């Protein structure tokens, strides 16, 4: 059953999800009044990658039956991701031209 999640078809679906996410991100940014530039997008991308790796890492450890390690991993890195999310929000909201 779980094998389908390592088949090429699964990764095609994942690719489609990422494509939708990238396409939708600029609309969200505009509607939220964010003045995005390359650096802000890069920082956002880095944060999302870290979020993805944290979730994936925690669940990888669950898959290994290392439940405690998985929860600790999610908890520890999750806190870092939340702190970075606050920092990221301040960065993307920052607009020097508005001063």
């Amino acid at each position, binding site marked *: 059953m779980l094998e389908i999640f390592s088949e090429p078809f699964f990764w095609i679906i994942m690719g*489609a999800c990422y494509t939708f996410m990238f396409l939708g991100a600029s609309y969200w940014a505009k509607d939220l009044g964010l003045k995005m530039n390359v650096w802000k997008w890069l920082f956002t991308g880095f944060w*999302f990658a870290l979020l993805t790796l944290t979730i994936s890492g925690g669940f990888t*450890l669950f898959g290994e039956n*290392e439940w405690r390690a998985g929860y600790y991993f999610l908890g520890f890195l999750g806190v870092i991701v939340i702190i970075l999310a606050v920092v990221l929000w301040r960065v993307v909201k920052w607009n020097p031209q508005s001063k």
Partner: protein
Amino acid sequence: MDKKSKKGISRREFMKVGGAVGAALSLGGAAVAGFVSGRSKDTYTGWGPAPYGEDQFFNRKPFYVDKPTYEVVGKPERIRYLDNIFKRNGELYRLMYAKDGEPKWDLSKGAEDLPEPLKTYYLNNSERLAEFKRAYYKADEQHKNWPKYQDQFFIADAWSTAHSTSFRGRGSFPLEPKGPPEESDFNGVTMKPYPLKSPKHGSELIKKISHTFGATLVGVTELKEEWVYQGYLRGVGKTEFKKPEHWKNVIVIAVPHEWDALYVNPTYGTSYDAYSKLNFVAGKIEIFLRKMGYSARIHVPPVDYDIIVPPIAIDAGLGEFGRNGIVITPELGANTRLAAVTTDMPLEPDKPIDIGIKKFCEKCKICAEECPSGSISMDDAPTKNIRGFKRWDIDQDKCFTVWNSVATSHSRGCRICLAVCPYSRKNNWIHRLAKEVDPYDPSGAFASAMLAMQKNFFEYPGANEYLPPPDGSNKTYGEPPEWLDSSKWFDI
């Protein structure tokens, strides 16, 4: 203003909802992909789907060094055969259970009653004889306790027995050497070898062939005299001898234990699965080389060696010594079991590597903390001079006593130090990332961070817990897989 679609949803809204759903699904997909990666057997290196060498995935080239990472602190000495616990225990057993039925020695006697060279050896190492006696009594206890634990562990026991059936003396392959190496190593050689294009071609060919025979890792090096046993030569018997001239090069192969069984050491685990594989792989390499016109002699576990293989594996760049005395490799961690084939085939030697394992072991100490026999040194750095090499001390006699204490049918070993080693984790993306990144960090900060996670996130039962009651509670390091769980398959 955006144009509305026929159903009244604007393109902007569609893209926003699509983007949000895409982000949520991609995070969900990452969680599922991670879980599948953690469960997957494909990341059990050496037992996965790649028999053509892909399991030897670590790029060693950036870490090549001119000298191996073991430290030479004196004149290297060859190991005497009695320094090997299995050889000296074998000698004692042969006296206790002599073929003529008349015991030549028993446990009530001391070292002074032993024949030479055992007498001198044990007079100089009296604590080892005391530990042998302790192990013997523990084995008796173990044997009596087995019916109590049999219901739980009998599948593991049968599995181990099936693997061990091929060992020399019990099966017919690989063949035992008979006569001096100058004869026995050439048995079956019927032709002169074709001229090799170069030693490099020889190395590449034998590596490819070894992988197809089932070797997970293969390395090649020249044989140094100091790695040859002294005092006993298979096929000849007790003798003092020089390294035979045709033992020019060594092909070292490594395979892992089946990973599920490794993680449920000491009671479900076994050494025999890897040993059996090594016997067959090395035996086939031996025959292949002889058919090609070259001499060949295998050196295989459990006890059929004329050379000590771990330092040779280090010379061949497979890995480095760990605190637990095991060669730790980047692909298999401490779950690395070794065998070798000596040959006169011209081969280009591999270079040793330095990926910082010694430095990691200096900080880690998990194997020493979890060892139920307390036989692994807790010293920060290697301190003991063993035959001219600085090493962490391993008390092999105490180790063997625990083999005779755990809840198995007989002394099938323990291997907790292999299972708990942080390098022995599955090669899924998260552990592989750690293993691949760490060697590139000379500061050691990455290793320290990984080690902090290792010690604080993961559960370790504690050294005594692996022992049977009353000392412990028969704990295993990991949870038993369903195929070793007897209650799943039988009405017990």
